[in-house]
């Protein structure tokens, strides 16, 4: 029998991949720094388990935890099993769980201790030897941010930043820097050791289905693009409201505040995805080029402009869910006269042809009346209201609302006639909800992002120039607030939608959406 069209050696594409939902991931060893920490136990390990359960991990996969607590390998595995059983979105299969963890190793020590890097090298080499090939290596830094440059430097010093015939990547958790200067410094420190294509700065919001759906909605539908500009859009509101307080995170939060915690990363990423130009292809650099362009079009305020475009506040005692809760300054670990903001609202403008004159309002806060993350695009009113009639709320501007949580979905408000003999109009919603429109359960954001990092796909990660652009927008506000030591910080009652002062950011006729 003769060949019809033989596969030539020149073919670089794997012909077996066509049509598969789950793309191959090369054999990998994942090293988690901070493996005994909260993030690792609540998110990373359950995400790894779910990937294993679904057969999405590489054919050879090894995990090494690095932490300061004293554990033997066996004891470490027991803690991992416990976390997966508690936090996984599905009940673990004992055989898969055992397969995932039976070779898991633990390296104990301080992150600046040379010995742990020697032990890490030995363990990784041992895994390579057992596998009979070089495994790709992913170093996941789930530690306090001050250790990021330390760990990267030490990895470089022992040569773990590169590998012959295998890929090496480093994943950096947030916060990436404390301000523009520290972010630049951290970028420089990382880029001293790793190439940019090896660095994966994680923002787990980008792994959420609704956030990715923002791009699908904009770039896979002809319906929206014609109105996606200053001619039709009146303003945009991006809200990330939480009903909880700071919990046990006072140590972190006192230094971060709402602006650094949510606005600088998640909320500005949402703004970038909402306003960027269509990328020519959905790949890492073309997408991030477009995000960078639009972030650079947001003109950072001068110090004396900050007061007019940014509001900060702290929660005071109040009632949330029927229970009395303390004010921020009464929380454990918070300074009596703390000036850290638990609420921030901003008005930003994107200075380009598409968006000139459209205000973008961002607000985030803790201890607000409910938990809600959404992007609301409010269109302009129709120019002539011939249909309006008394006895109804009348015609309202159309709104397109992307809900990120709690119920992921999209709704469009439209004016519709109220049944009856008169021409009365009221807004009604057309709704799309994941729960009613898809069979699949959305994977956790970390599942997608860990897999992407192992595959080397940086599309949903933040590039160095992008992170600096994000900080450039926020830096003057942080500086102005830092310099202002005299004025009092507005207080808002816990369980309410936030401080009245935020209303001053809005243009006449505009109002914050109800939480």
């Amino acid at each position: 029998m003769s060949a019809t069209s033989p596969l030539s050696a020149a073919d670089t594409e794997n012909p077996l991949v066509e049509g598969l939902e789950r793309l191959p991931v090369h054999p990998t060893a994942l090293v988690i720094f901070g493996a005994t920490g909260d993030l690792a136990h609540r998110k990373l390990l359950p995400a790894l388990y779910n990937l294993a359960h679904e057969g999405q991990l590489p054919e050879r996969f090894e995990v090494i935890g690095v932490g300061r607590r004293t554990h033997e390998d066996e004891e470490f595995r027991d803690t991992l099993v416990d976390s997966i059983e508690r936090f996984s979105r599905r009940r673990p299969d004992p055989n898969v769980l055992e397969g995932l963890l039976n070779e898991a190793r633990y390296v104990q020590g301080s992150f600046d201790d040379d010995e742990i890097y020697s032990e890490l090298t030995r363990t990784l080499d041992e895994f390579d030897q057992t596998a009979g090939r070089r495994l790709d290596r992913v170093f996941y830094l789930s530690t306090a941010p001050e250790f990021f440059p330390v760990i990267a430097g030490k990895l470089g010093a022992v040569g773990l930043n590169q590998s012959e015939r295998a890929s090496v990547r480093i994943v950096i958790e947030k916060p990436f820097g404390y301000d523009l200067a520290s972010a630049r410094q951290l970028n420089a420190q990382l880029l001293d050791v790793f190439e940019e294509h090896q660095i994966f700065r994680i923002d787990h919001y980008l792994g959420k289905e609704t956030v990715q759906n923002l791009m699908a909605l904009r770039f896979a539908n002809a319906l929206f693009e014609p109105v996606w500009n200053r001619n039709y859009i009146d303003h945009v509101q991006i809200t990330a409201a939480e009903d909880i307080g700071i919990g046990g995170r006072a140590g972190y939060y006192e230094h971060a505040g709402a602006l650094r915690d949510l606005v600088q990363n998640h909320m500005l990423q949402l703004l970038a995805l909402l306003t960027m130009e269509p990328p020519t292809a959905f790949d890492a650099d073309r997408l991030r080029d477009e995000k960078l362009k639009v972030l650079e079009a947001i003109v950072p305020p001068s110090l004396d402009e900050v007061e007019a475009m940014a509001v900060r506040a702290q929660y005071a005692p109040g009632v949330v869910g029927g229970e009395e809760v303390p004010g921020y300054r009464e929380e454990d670990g918070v300074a009596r006269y703390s000036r850290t903001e638990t609420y921030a609202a901003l008005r930003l403008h994107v200075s380009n042809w598409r968006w000139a004159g459209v205000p973008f309002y961002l607000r985030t806060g803790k201890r607000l009346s409910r938990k809600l993350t959404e992007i609301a695009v409010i269109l302009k009113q129709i120019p002539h209201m011939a249909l309006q009639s008394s006895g109804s709320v009348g015609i309202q501007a159309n709104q397109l609302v992307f809900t990120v949580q709690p119920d992921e979905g999209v709704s469009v408000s439209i004016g519709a006639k109220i049944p009856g003999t008169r021409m009365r109009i009221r807004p009604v919603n057309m709704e799309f909800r994941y729960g009613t429109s898809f069979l699949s359960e959305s994977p956790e954001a970390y599942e997608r992002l860990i897999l992407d990092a192992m595959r080397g796909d940086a599309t949903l990660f933040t590039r160095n120039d992008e992170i600096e652009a994000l900080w450039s927008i926020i830096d003057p506000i942080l500086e102005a607030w830092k310099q202002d030591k005299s004025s009092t910080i507005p207080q808002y009652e816990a369980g309410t939608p936030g401080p009245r002062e935020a209303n001053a950011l809005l243009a006449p006729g505009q109002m914050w959406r109800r939480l």
Partner: protein
Amino acid sequence: MSEDVWAAQDTHPDAIEAALRELLRERHAANEALAPARVLNLIVVVDREWKGEIANRLERAGRYHASRTVLCAVEEGRTTLDAVATVSYEEPKGSALGVMHESVEIDLGPDHLRALQTICDPVLVGEIPTVVWSPHGHPEAVEALCPLMDVLLLDSDEMDDPAEAFARAERLRKHAYIVDLAWLRTTPWRERLAATFDLPERLEALSEIEELEIRHREASMASALLLAGWLSSRLHWERSQLRLWDGRLAGQPGQGNGDVIVSLHTAEQEAPGLAGVTVACADGTTLSLQRGEGGLDAHERDSEGAEHAWKILGASRGEGGILGEGIRQALLRDPTYLPSLEAARELSPA
């Protein structure tokens, strides 16, 4: 899980549809946070005496159930329609959204099957895809439903003769997109073979495969042939019919550098589907994947004789999971199934 139920004897499709609409309206009025799922319709045609077994299989499909399931139970001698319509839901907590699913069971007679579309059409949700599954045969029902169906769910492993099963799939694909459960049983094997050969140093070995051995449950030869068909179509092997030789099916399709020995063996196994796959290349490398607890047991011998064994993790989906996956796949399109089907037909023994 809560349910609202309506039932009637000697009824009519319009009455069933009106009852469903009313059940949904009443439930939504009672709780606005409850909304009907709107993903796909599923029409299932079964023998009435086995409808409980099919209902159990659908139950085990887990979260991948249709928005509206219309179960047509065929009863010998019946001339009228009896129906039960159910709206099921879990009361949502807090501000969460609750999803309602609808199911209709219609008892009907064999004479109804030739015009089954006139019974089902009024009961379906418009504007969403309709999937048809007829696990007990009833080809006349499938034919009648052709104008309504977007996707046909079938299982080539359920027919005794794989060649006949593939011919049926080939014939019906002209009417609807085919989701073949026998094909879905090969998915983890295809994914793992693709991953194995994705490594740069192994990619070239794809053109040097000399032997392919597939081990399968006796009743799952269609799955085994589809896997062989997939590899041969993806790698452009020239195919020939496999023949029974030494207690196994074997043949020698050709590829660029020569023939490939393809053999299919039956294996003792409780679960339907494949038991193992071994691929051998010209340089002496062999890779073997074997079904095991918690995933696939992999064994590799490289060209220098060094051996490595490891576990490829993944939980078994079970037959309930396969059916659920079949329903989910109705919303997707796999461009490699039809070429694999065509190849499997050519490899099928006479």
